[in-house]
């Protein structure tokens, strides 16, 4: 899909279309670039500053590309109680990035989310939309190593 074809889905150009448009653009291109935001501003006749203000309010909008493997770590209550903090610390050390960042090689990016909604199988991460539940520290390290070696993981088929 091109930007134009995305715009064509919203012929009424209403303010309420802003967030759906941002979501569709990010789904298609992976992130929101300055160019696309400016085009969006012209399309909707809304100030670019306002659009940027709306996009930066919500957690799921990114302004730079994610890594080949995008890791979303759940840090909800049940996961925290099950030791998600330790896993997070370890991940940050292993990948040498913090939440919200992508590593220099573009291999991994990390995002901490508040609740993936699988509390019975805490702690868990989601990598490229596939879940890895009931993670131990060792298992987490193993996954990272295998991804680094470009091995396929035994994914659960995600939703």
């Amino acid at each position, binding site marked *: 899909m091109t930007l134009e074809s995305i715009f064509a889905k919203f012929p009424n150009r209403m303010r309420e279309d802003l967030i759906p448009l941002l979501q569709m653009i990010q789904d298609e291109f992976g992130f929101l670039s*300055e160019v696309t935001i400016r085009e969006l501003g012209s399309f909707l006749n809304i*100030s*670019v*500053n*306002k659009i*940027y*203000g709306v996009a*930066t*309010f*919500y957690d799921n909008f990114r302004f730079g590309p994610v890594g080949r493997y995008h890791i979303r770590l759940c840090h909800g209550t049940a996961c925290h109680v099950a030791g998600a903090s330790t896993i997070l610390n370890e991940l940050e050390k292993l990948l040498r990035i913090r939440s919200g960042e992508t590593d220099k090689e573009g291999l991994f990016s990390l995002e901490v989310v508040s609740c993936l909604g699988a509390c019975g199988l805490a702690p868990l991460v989601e990598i490229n939309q596939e879940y890895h539940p009931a993670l131990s520290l060792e298992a987490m390290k193993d996954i990272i190593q295998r991804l680094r070696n470009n091995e396929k993981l035994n994914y659960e088929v995600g939703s």
Partner: protein
Amino acid sequence: MRGKPGTTMDFNIQADNRQISVQEGETLLTALRRNGFKVPTLCHMNRFSPTGACRLCVVEVEGKRDLITSCSFPVEKGMRVLTNSPRVVRARKSLVELLLSNHPDDCLYCQRNGDCELQWLAGEMNVKERKYFGEKNRQFPDHSSSSVFRDPAKCVLCGRCVRMCEEVQLVTAIDFIGRGNVTSVNSAFLQGLNVSSCIHCGQCIMVCPTAALLDISHLEKVEAALNHPGKKVACFVSPSVVASVAEQTGSKVHKDLGAEVAATLEKCGAERVTDLGVACDANVAQEALVLRERMSSKESAGPVLSSCCPAWVSYLETFRPEWLPLLSGVSSPQQLMGAGVKSGSEKTAGKEEVFTVAVMPCVAKKQEASREEYTHKGVAGVDAVLTVREYFRLVRSHGLVPGEPGQAVKPFLQGSAAAWKMAYSGGKAEAVAAELYRLTGPHKQGFRFNTPKNQAARKESRVVMGRQTPGFAWVSGIAEADRYIGMLLNEKRKDIHYVEVMACPGGCAGGGGQPVSRHPDKIKNRKKICMEMERLCEVKVAGENPLAKHFQGS
């Protein structure tokens, strides 16, 4: 929000130990303030709907579990309000302490020292000690714009600038970015103001409670020039500035007001100080000519739009380029004066030696002075622009008292009544009408529009001049301007031929370079002074001023 008296219901509520009269539908804050209660606010702006963001206006209301923000809560029958219960007092103080916990501690080095709302609140709330020692948000100042300086570290996120820029000026050059504790007021991608859509009107500065928004300072340049042995500083002072100085210092209106201002500048080291009013007359005269020409041409795409307001021109360039051809195209008084002074001095000494300084009620003029078309062979027509605020700082730092009577040395005022008219919304239109009238009809002293007293919505006037009846309109604030002109063009109205547009609500009397003050009548008071000065002028109409001829040409 109040209804017309007599049409809504009045009733009483209890506030502290008194019964006060309130009107149905109005907010608690309006009612309390009208009855003499002092309630602090920060995010509240008159004539804007309340947001309830700062929570400083909280009061205790019997029956409600939490404290209530009086700015957003309507009065209710049977209400019992406590405006200074221990809970309320403690809450307000804590809120200020919380703001201070994320605010730089450098009051002594801050431009708004003594004039800052946060500082005032801290004093009022009796804040005596630092409660929190955590990290403050790190923000970087933005010097990129030619007119407006931003220091987000001092921002208290009251949102007044955002609303002003969006709702009154339709620009939204800045907005809230991010979320929570790391929210800042910024432009997209945190780029500088100079690449955002900012039109430099400076209305944001006028509503900012702290030093988060200020002028880009030209004081250093001016001081350097004043002290430079090889430079001669030529200042020209706008009549609007003279009125503001009189309003701030409480001086009585008399014909030497301008001369007093000039005297202070001369004592600072200016070689020559002139009245910008002459250039104002030239500008008005030229606009009248343009108007006459357009009116006589068969094809008219629309009314003539005044072009002396640089923020308005910036707005058209960014948002309404299709309206640009409607501009009169006449150079603003500042640029006429600058060009005139520089080319005049060319004939005497080398023009590099002359340093021109405009003292204006405006920050957009700083941007205008830097425009390429006003630079000739690398030399700018106007080298520096000082706002009224900068004028006061300059003069005080030299130990002088602005507006001190008896300072006037030479006669000063050279402009006509038209120059004073340009200081307030509607005045320029009147001046142009008077000049056009002079050109087409019999002379008339003290030309005034015939408009009804309560002309809140009606800012139009039609004047019979010979066989034609040109229509004049005046708007201030970009939202009003955009709406009105859009309406004129959509409805293809042929009865309005000239629209005076001032980006600042109220005209230059409310300009972005004026002293920041929350006095509700400040614009009215400055306008009053201008109108009194008009009466004192001998020359009433721009074209009658012989001195104006020196500034022909665009």
